[in-house]
């Protein structure tokens, strides 16, 4: 997911990712629309601008974190926003912070490792769930055993 109120940024990054990867890329100029999207669809990596109308990038990434904690959150910001952005970074446990003008190779690396991280988190979640259900079936077996012997 790429969110920037500048259409040109979305067009450029989208074209780049489509050429170099087989990721499914969704672009939004409206952060509220991006937030609604994250309610319904899986997001592995969210790359967001900082200064946008209605909602800044940190607020948006915070909302995405609530809905999909596994999604890797990346801030892509212009120089003028730097200070306020750095102050807010801890709030949303940012995966990576990038500055404009961005470097495509670096952006790709960040997105790839972000996607990998999201996949690992999801795997972990599945494994934990499996362990939980194995644990509860073990418990019920144990209970039945106890009942049978006592």
């Amino acid at each position, binding site marked *: 997911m790429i969110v920037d*109120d*500048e259409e*040109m*940024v979305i*067009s*450029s*990054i989208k*074209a*780049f990712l*489509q*050429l*170099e990867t087989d990721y499914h890329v969704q672009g939004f100029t409206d952060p509220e629309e991006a937030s609604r999207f994250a309610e319904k669809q899986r997001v592995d990596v969210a790359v967001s601008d900082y*200064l*946008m*109308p209605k909602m800044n990038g940190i607020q948006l990434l915070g909302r995405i974190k609530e809905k999909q904690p596994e999604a890797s959150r990346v801030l892509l910001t*212009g*120089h*003028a*926003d730097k200070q306020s952005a750095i102050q807010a970074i801890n709030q949303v446990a940012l995966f990576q912070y990038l*500055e*404009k*003008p*961005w*470097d*495509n190779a670096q952006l790709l690396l960040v997105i790839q490792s972000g996607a990998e991280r999201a996949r690992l988190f999801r795997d972990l979640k599945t494994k934990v769930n499996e362990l939980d259900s194995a644990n509860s079936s073990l418990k019920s077996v144990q209970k039945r055993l106890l009942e049978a012997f006592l």
Partner: protein
Amino acid sequence: MSSPAAELHQMAAVGRLLAGVVHEINTPLGSIFSNNEVISRALEMLCPLLQQGTPEALESAGRLVSTCQTLASVDRIACERIRSVIQSLRSLSRLDAPEPLYVNLNQQLLDTVKLTNAQFRRRIAVETNLGELPEVRCYPQMLNQVFLNLLVNAGHAIEGEGTITIRTRLEGGLVHISISDTGRGMTPEVQARAFEPGFTTKAVGEGSGLGLSISREIVEEKHGGTIDFETRPGVGTTFHIRIPVEQKRSAP
């Protein structure tokens, strides 16, 4: 105007302005860099596809070409954005002519707005209602500094989102410029001291407290005009500047 404090104030204002301009240029620049790389890469991939010549290869080639076309038009928009920022910067930084020039103040205001937009764009809407004006004999760069000071102050007065409205009209032999904000307004204490050199409501390091006193000097001493304001706490502030179209001491 040449006191060290006034010069420092101007340098600080220019510094803040430049930070906004850098941001305004970095976004389109990022796009152009990225697009350039993608287009080169697409062209690299295009040659082998065309040599293969199979229907599938030609279809992929077609997609690459349309990507390049899209990016070329994005580049054009990005370049135009950079050019327009640089044009307004250039027109604002014209060296002060020793003699006054005839300029259209509407144009000066629009150029100043374009630069402050880099700081305001996503938070504050700037509306303009510009009447037809004759060319005014003035020191344009000094007046731009006044406009910049007032716009920056207006932006500071607005917490969160708001609107700045700029109006101009000709009233007899005077050009009347008003700059209104929907900000917090000024308390009676602030009103009384607003034009006092060194008085500021901004945080340490954010304002020198000289903006309005310098503005008054430029408008009154250099142009024989007037500057005053009306304000209502919680509603907003309007600054009025009136400048004679022809100034007596510099009339031809």
